[in-house]
């Protein structure tokens, strides 16, 4: 940022202070979480001495481990799909006009404003019938499980992704793209080499958001899951009912590390591919 525009003195100090305060704010409970996951006391809040017992307990607990891997599978799958669909939706709304655009625009806001529990109930009712119909028509034997959880997560994530990408696109003129087209690029090439890099912060933000939403979802997942498909948040939710112990902290830390690994992996992959996203 050029020094001519960089805020000086008082404003600069305030900005920086605000920045670091926010990070502190964000990480305070996380620090507590991590520290107490090593506490030997069953009561989160009273320190009981260092121990790895809770992590061991997690390791021994097959249900918890399955729940973790289930969550990650669902999160990755639903994030990828919702990012693609959400970006397409955002592009169509910001760049084009077509019949039914207003309806589509309004429709995209519904998943954001619907209460979780309502969506949970309606997806339960929907899937109970949906699989019946599908099985009848196609002679399959599908039932609730991974597919219904992922389908539901995608349904709410598309909207969040599109909101973030649209915020990025809004008002962004398409002069660069038009220039590319004038220079005989195909639409796809223009998109890939001109538009995409420009909106990639929006896409990245949307992807992060979608993943967070998927990993956090409890009620909806609870209602559309099937036997053997308990995700980690649902599992933790049930555990908490029985009492908040450092086991829950340990599980959360493990989940945190797992998610971080995923993100780091995807960043590494992106860089390896030449990084269309990084400017």
């Amino acid at each position, binding site marked *: 940022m050029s020094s001519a525009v960089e805020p000086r003195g008082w404003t600069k100090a305030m900005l920086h202070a605000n920045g670091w305060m926010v990070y502190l704010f964000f990480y305070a409970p996380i620090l507590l979480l991590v520290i107490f996951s090593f506490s030997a006391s069953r009561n989160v809040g009273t320190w009981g001495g260092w121990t790895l017992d809770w992590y061991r307990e997690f390791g021994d607990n097959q249900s918890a481990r399955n729940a973790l891997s289930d969550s990650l599978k669902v999160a990755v799958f639903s994030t990828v799909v919702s990012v693609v669909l959400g970006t397409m939706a955002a592009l169509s709304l910001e760049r084009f006009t077509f019949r039914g655009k207003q309806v589509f625009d309004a429709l995209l806001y519904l998943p954001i404003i619907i209460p979780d529990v309502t969506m949970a109930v309606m997806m339960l009712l929907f899937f109970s019938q949906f699989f019946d119909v599908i099985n009848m028509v196609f002679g399959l034997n599908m039932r*609730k499980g991974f597919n219904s959880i992922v389908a539901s997560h995608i349904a709410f994530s598309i909207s969040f992704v599109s909101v973030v990408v649209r915020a990025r696109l809004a008002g962004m003129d398409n002069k660069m793209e038009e220039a590319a087209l004038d220079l005989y690029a195909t639409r796809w090439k223009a998109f890939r080499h001109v538009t995409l890099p420009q909106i990639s912060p929006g896409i990245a933000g949307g992807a992060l958001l979608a993943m967070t939403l998927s990993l956090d979802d409890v009620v909806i997942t609870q209602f559309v899951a099937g036997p053997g498909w308990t995700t980690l948040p649902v599992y933790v939710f049930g555990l908490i009912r029985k009492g908040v112990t450092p086991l829950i902290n340990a599980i959360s830390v493990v989940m945190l590390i797992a998610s971080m690994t995923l993100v780091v992996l995807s960043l590494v992959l992106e860089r390896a591919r030449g990084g269309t996203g990084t400017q």
Partner: protein
Amino acid sequence: MKKTHWFRLLAGLFGFALLASACGSDDPSSSSAAAACEPGQIDGDLALYNWAEYIDEEQLFAFADEHGISASIDSYDSNEAMQPIVSEGNSGFDVIVPSDYMVSVMIAAGSLMPLNYDAIPNSANLMSDMQNLYFDPDGAYSLPYQWGTTGIAVNTEAIGEDFPRTWGLIFDPAISGEFDGQIQLLNDPRETMGAALHYLGYSNNTTDMDELNEARDLVAATASRLAAFNTDSADEFLTSGETVIAHGYSGDMFVQALETENPAQYVYFVPEEGGTLWIDNFSIAHDAPHPCTAHTFINWMYSGEQGAALTNWNYYNTPNEAAVPFLDEDLLDFVNDPTVLAGGVDSLESLQDTGDFETNYSDAFVEAKG
């Protein structure tokens, strides 16, 4: 508007189709007949749907290994979350664990499969006073799993050893005024309104609007003296010092106290005016994919050994006569302590579903909170 109009029409039609089939299957499937199963018969894997931390998964897997199948366990945190999932059909679950009042609701909704007692010979171990329960008189659809009571637990270090064993400990400022801000009530309409009703001398299943309103006003007056309305952490708040007087479940309080340095400091009791007796039960979903495995599992859990293993793990009360000799000492002491039931066994009352009146309880609770 052609394309989108067409779209919405299609969507509407599809929706209608689904709705139509939804209406159709709303009638309880022709009351499922009891599965014709032999004792010990296995017809596939077991899918258990239970409250969290209510059974040791090792025990479940032991059953699976013994019978050469695999077993899955999923958990729910409330009856009302479990029930629609099972009632809608195709949940995939075999064995579920509904509470007393929920059993009667699910029977009426046709969501449970009748039990074939020929396949559950160990049911003979059921304690005699756990038979002919109001919500399922012949036990046609349920077999008790664990039971307990709801009452008050106190921190004797703060309030002393000599305290009145009454609900007034919560509701009466004259008794506990000095502990304002350190009292907690359960965040459950039936339990909390029930406590108030018992204190006022009424039944916790009343369908009398005046009585309910009295209870509501009492809870409203008490709300400002509370630390919180809370269900999951009632026991923790007590042992962490956040509260001094806690409304909660027997097993939770008992286990939590054992975790502290001085368990004797925390005393649980059911007030003399009466408290809730609750019973959770084994049941089989109406469309259980593997009913015979389900029966075998229930039978296996009802042996004295397995019944004791279960109770020694979750520390609630067992309905299984044969399990009693194998119970832990601590647990036996707690269960057999005569001072726990201040009003005696007869003062206990189970919660029943009040049908159309039910919504008044949750409404009153919301109004009481303000």
